[in-house]
């Protein structure tokens, strides 16, 4: 069994951990660091419940090996709020009742935060008309549905998730 030591920053805090090379970021967070906000849904990159931010980019914690994140900055759902002040995306999900059971919600939140940043950088999606420029202010429901398609909700709360993400832009 191969183990390695690893230095990384999680929600602004430097952490030094010793991991089996097989450990995913999701398992590191949940089993070793006590951060159980990120959820294990499918564990195969198909549901998005484990979505976290690495250097501000949304990735799937279940398919990232922890050993690949030496020196990285990881943000989980626990790190989105500023103290007691919720992140605008969290506030919008509460206001729009954008969940039922809540299991997919941490992944939805982290994904939405990362997605809005991607839009801010002008990244196209498959529904962006060729040659068009997207911006956070011009984002519509079709773009949100497409860009959030990697996050499944078995309760079917999408009808409230899409308005929540749109509302969070303000």
């Amino acid at each position, binding site marked *: *069994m*191969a183990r*390695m030591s690893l230095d990384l920053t999680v929600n602004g805090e430097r952490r030094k951990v010793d991991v*089996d*090379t*097989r450990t*995913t970021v999701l398992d590191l967070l949940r089993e070793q660091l006590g951060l159980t906000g990120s959820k294990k849904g499918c*564990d*195969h*990159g198909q549901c*998005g419940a484990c*979505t976290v931010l690495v250097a501000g*980019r*949304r*990735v*799937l914690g279940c*398919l*990232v*090996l922890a*050993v*690949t994140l*030496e020196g990285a900055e990881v943000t989980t759902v626990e790190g989105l709020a500023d103290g007691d002040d919720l992140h605008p995306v969290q506030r919008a999900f509460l206001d729009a009742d954008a969940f039922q059971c809540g299991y997919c919600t941490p992944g939805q939140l982290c*994904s939405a935060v*990362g*997605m809005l940043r*991607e839009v801010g*950088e*002008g*990244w*196209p*999606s*498959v529904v*962006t008309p*060729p*040659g068009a420029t997207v911006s956070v202010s011009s984002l519509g429901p079709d773009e949100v*549905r*497409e*860009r*959030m*398609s*990697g*996050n499944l909700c078995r309760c079917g709360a999408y009808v409230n998730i899409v308005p929540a993400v749109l509302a969070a832009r303000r």
Partner: protein
Amino acid sequence: MKAFEYERPVGVTEAVALARRAGSRFLGGGTNLVDLMKLGVETPDLLVDLTGLDLAEVLEQPDGALRIGATVRNSDLSANDAVRARYPVLSQALVAGASGQLRNMATVGGNMLQRTRCPYFQDVTKACNKRVPGSGCPARAGEHRNLAILGASEACIATSPSDFAVALAALDAGVTALTTEGEVSLTVSDFFRLPGDEPQRDTNLPPGALVTALTVPRLDWATRSAYRKVRDRASYAFALVSVAAAVDLDGDRVRDVRLALGGVAHAPWRATRAEEALRGGPATEEAFSAALRGELEAAEPLPHNGFKVDLAHNVAVRTLTELTGVPA
């Protein structure tokens, strides 16, 4: 998951040397490999992480070609200004694949080397000639609704899952790889292979070779290009059929054309017969339809995937009519 060692080389020479160790695998974004390791399909003894290598740049070459480093992430390439302006088909193919999270992780080199999503290949309790040569192919008599209609063999009817590779095939792109013997260059068409009686081989890449770059040649008229993908749900699914097309129009005639089909074969299917039929001919829906019918004469569908023949025809014809502005 089986235990493995992990190395993070800082140079390509070191990476290629590490790959000579038995049971080694290169690790890019891990979106396919880590999943296959969880499934027991891949059981490496050593992972050689490539993401620390200096291969993450997109460079415009003096001859107008675009050189894409192997560890450029799919999402970064899809948003690249030169790619969006010069090769819309490439950007569109990238954003048609996977999800936002996966595109942030996946590298373009890894994309070219991802394995088929044939359900039998991914299930170690089932026979599969690609996973265990000679064990048989249950897909022919079993679940094959989304498997190949072109270029398959008795041994294997798997499809290539990449959208990106279909666009690269249409653009006559090249693959550069490094081995301990030196550099190797292949066209995308020569890189991928049909299964024949060796379905365990997805590509013609030499063993241990490290893909370092993809090169897209200059093609000024690729500004008139598009990628269209049809899948079982609106987003986040593999293609049933996809089409990458570029057209050079001379008035109402086709001066030149590039056409490749995805989701239909073990490799991106460059529709050379249709291209020849269209070159120099009228840009009309009738001509597009006839050319596709000709191309698809080679199709050998199975009981559950015959729908893909008409679907490939219709999607390609629609893509070409939209690109050329032909009234539908």
